[in-house]
C-alpha cells in the first residue's frame, strides 16, 4: 500500500507540478472568467464609450441591407416593414428578372416580388442559415389574406384585429422523473464533451507515461523496485486524480464566476440552463468519468507497455482511440437528433466501452429505469475490473519486451503463461 501511495504521489505531482499542465489550467480558468464576466467587462467599456452623447444612430435603425419589394402598396409595405425590422425595405416597380439582376450586382441585398394574394418570389444572393425573411413574409401575406376574406364576410376591423391577434397560452407540466430536453441539452452536451475529452486526454497521458518509462528504460529499475500492479494502479489513479482536479478547478471556477455574475446573465437562457445542472446529473458525470476513465486508462496503459519506443505509441493506441471516438459519434448523433432512446444508444448504454457516455446522455436527457442504470453501471464495473486484470498482466509482460511490438497471439500466450 505504501508503494502504491508513493507511485500515486509521484505520478500525481508529475502533472500537478508540471508547468505546462498548470499553465493550461490557469489559461482555461482565465478564459472562463473572461466569458462569464463579459457582461461586466462590456458594461465597463460601453460606459466609457457612450459617455459622449450618442446621437448619430437611433437605436431602432435597421442594420441589414436594402431589400426591394414589388407588388405591394406603400401602406402594405409599411406593415411588412414593421414585421421585418432587420431590413430596410424599398418599394420597387421592377419585375422579377430586373430585380434578380440587381440583387446579383449588389444594388439590393434581396428582393421580395409579391405575385398574387398568397404567392411571392424571394430573390437573394445567399440564403443565410438564420434568414427568417420568408417566414415573416409568409405570415404577413397569410394575415393579409385572412383580413381580406374576413372583411368580405362583413367582419368589423376590431373583430379582425382580435381574431388575427389571438395568441394561445400554454402551461407545461412535467412529471417528476422526466427531463426537459430543451433545458438539459446544453449542459448534457457540455458534460458529454468534457467526459469525452477527459477520458481520451488522460487515458492517453497514461499510455504516453508508460511508453516513456519504457523507452527511457526507467522501467527495469521500477519493476525491480516495486510490484508492477502498484506501478500501474498508482500511475492510473495519480493521472486520473490530477485530471479530475484540473476539471474540477475549471468547472468549479466557471460556477463561481457565473454565480458572481448571476444578475447579468438572467436574460440568457442558454447560459442559465448550462448552470442549472441538477446535482444528480453532475454526480452521474463524475461516476461515469471515473468508470470510463479507468476502463480506457487500463487499455491505454497496457498498450503503452507493449511498444518499445514512443514513436510507435500513436499507432498502437489507435484501435482504442477509434473505439472511443465512434462511441462518442454515436452518442452525439443521438443527442443532436433529440432522440436519446433509439435502439442504437440503448444498446450502447450497456456495452462497457460506450456506456459511460451513452448511459450518461440517456440519464441526462430522459428518464431511464433504475434497474437499467444499475445494470449498465454493474456491467461497466465488472468489465473494468476484468480489463484491469488483463491490463496488469499485459503490463507485467509487456514492460520488458523490446523490439517489435508483440503480436496479439504472443500476448495471449503470455497471459496464459501468467495464469
Amino acid at each position: 500500500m505504501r508503494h502504491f501511495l508513493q507511485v500515486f504521489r509521484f505520478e500525481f505531482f508529475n502533472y500537478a507540478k508540471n508547468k505546462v499542465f498548470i499553465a493550461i489550467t490557469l489559461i482555461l480558468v482565465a478564459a472562463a472568467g473572461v466569458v462569464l464576466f463579459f457582461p461586466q467587462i462590456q458594461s465597463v467599456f460601453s460606459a466609457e464609450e457612450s459617455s459622449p452623447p450618442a446621437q448619430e444612430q437611433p437605436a431602432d435603425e435597421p442594420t441589414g441591407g436594402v431589400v426591394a419589394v414589388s407588388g405591394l402598396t406603400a401602406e402594405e409595405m409599411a406593415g411588412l416593414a414593421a414585421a421585418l425590422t432587420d431590413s430596410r425595405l424599398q418599394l420597387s416597380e421592377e419585375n422579377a428578372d430586373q430585380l434578380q439582376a440587381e440583387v446579383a450586382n449588389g444594388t439590393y441585398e434581396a428582393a421580395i416580388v409579391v405575385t398574387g394574394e398568397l404567392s411571392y418570389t424571394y430573390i437573394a444572393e445567399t440564403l443565410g442559415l438564420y434568414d427568417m425573411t420568408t417566414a415573416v413574409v409568409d405570415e404577413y401575406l397569410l394575415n393579409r389574406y385572412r383580413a381580406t376574406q374576413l372583411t368580405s364576410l362583413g367582419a368589423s376591423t376590431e373583430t379582425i384585429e382580435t381574431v388575427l391577434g389571438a395568441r394561445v397560452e400554454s402551461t407545461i407540466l412535467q412529471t417528476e422523473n422526466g427531463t426537459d430536453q430543451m433545458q438539459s441539452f446544453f449542459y448534457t452536451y457540455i458534460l458529454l464533451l468534457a467526459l469525452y475529452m477527459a477520458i481520451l486526454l488522460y487515458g492517453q497521458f497514461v499510455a504516453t507515461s508508460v511508453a516513456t518509462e519504457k523507452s527511457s528504460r526507467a522501467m527495469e529499475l521500477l519493476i525491480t523496485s516495486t510490484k508492477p500492479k502498484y506501478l500501474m494502479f498508482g500511475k492510473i489513479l495519480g493521472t486520473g486524480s490530477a485530471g479530475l482536479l484540473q476539471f474540477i478547478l475549471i468547472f468549479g471556477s466557471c460556477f463561481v464566476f457565473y454565480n458572481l455574475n448571476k444578475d447579468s446573465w438572467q436574460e440568457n437562457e442558454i447560459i442559465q440552463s448550462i448552470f442549472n445542472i441538477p446535482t444528480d446529473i453532475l454526480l452521474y458525470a463524475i461516476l461515469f468519468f471515473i468508470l470510463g476513465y479507468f476502463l480506457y486508462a487500463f487499455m491505454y496503459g497496457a498498450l503503452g507497455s507493449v511498444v518499445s519506443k514512443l514513436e510507435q505509441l500513436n499507432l498502437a493506441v489507435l484501435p482504442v482511440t477509434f473505439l472511443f471516438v465512434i462511441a462518442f459519434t454515436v452518442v452525439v448523433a443521438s443527442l443532436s437528433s433529440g432522440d436519446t432512446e433509439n435502439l442504437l444508444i440503448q444498446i450502447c448504454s450497456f456495452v462497457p466501452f460506450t456506456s459511460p457516455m451513452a448511459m450518461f446522455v440517456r440519464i441526462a436527457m430522459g428518464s431511464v429505469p433504475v434497474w437499467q442504470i444499475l445494470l449498465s453501471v454493474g456491467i461497466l464495473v465488472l468489465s473494468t475490473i476484468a480489463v484491469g486484470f488483463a491490463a496488469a498482466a499485459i503490463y507485467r509482460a509487456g514492460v520488458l519486451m523490446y523490439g517489435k511490438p508483440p503480436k496479439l497471439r504472443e500476448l495471449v500466450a503470455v497471459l496464459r503463461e501468467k495464469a
Partner: protein
Amino acid sequence: MKLEVRNLTKNFGEKEVLKGISFTAEAGSATGLLGRNGAGKTTAIRMIMGVFGGGGEILADGAPIRRDKINIGYLPEERGLYPKKPIAEQMVYFACLRGMKTRDAKAAVKKWLARLEMEEYADKKLDTLSKGNQQKIQLATALLTDPELIILDEPFSGLDPVNAMLLKDVVTEQINIGKTVLFSSHQMNYVEEFCRTIAILNQGKIVLNGNLSEIKRGYDRRKILLRTQNAEAMAAALQNLPDGIAAHIDTAPNLVTVQLQKAEDKKALAAFLGTCSADFDSMAVYEPSLNDIFVEYTED
C-alpha cells in the same frame, strides 16, 4: 549475504539463452560474471532480480530469495532513469519505492551525491548530464538504500578512467564493509583488480568458475619468461642448457620463453643462467592474465 545460483535455465522462444548455470557470490567479496556480448550475463542478472522467470534456483543464505525482503541495489545494463526529472527528486522516489522513508531517502541522496562528487547536479534534469555522469547517478541510485546485495550490470562501460577509479573505490568500500557484490563485465582489467571469484559465461554455460588466484595458480608453471636486451644472444646461450630441462624455447624481441619439461627445473635453469655469459633483466614464471584466461575460454 551469500547468493547462490543453481542451474539457471532460460529460453527466449526457440533460443536457449542459459543452459543451466551455477555460481556463488559471498559476502565481503566481489564476484565477476564475465562473458562476451550475448553470453547471457544480463539474462542471468535479470533472473536474479526477478525481472523474468525461468528454470533453476536462486538462493539467499540457503533459502529461496525473497526480493521484497532483501535489500538489493541494482544497476541495470540498460541504464534507465527519468531523463526529464530533476536528479535528486527521482533518486528519492526510487529509494522510497524500495522501502525507505522520505526523510532517510533525502539524506541518503545527499550523502551519495556528495560521495560521487555530483552535489551540484542535484536539481538538474538527468538528460542535461554527460553519459558518464548519468552513470554515476545510476550507481548512486543503486546504493541509496545501503543494500546488502549489490548487483552491477556492466558498471564500467562508458566511464572515463578517473570515474572508473572512483567507481572502483566505491565498490571496494562496499566490499570492505561486508557487502555481497556481483557484477558483470567484459573489461578484464577492472575485474582483475578487485574480483575474488569469477564465473566465465560462454554461450549460456559456465566454462570457468572459482577463485581467481586459484584459477591462475591452476595453470602449470612450466613457462619461464626471460626479459633481456639481446634475445638472440640469450637464445644462443640457452642451446648449452643441460639435456632434459627445456622442452621448447621461443624467441621474441627482448623476450625469451623457455618451456620447461618439469616445473621444478626452474631452479636448474636459474643456476644455468648464473653461469652463462648472456645478460638478462628478469626471470619470471608466466601467470596468465585474466584477459588471457578469458580469451582462452571464450574463443570460438
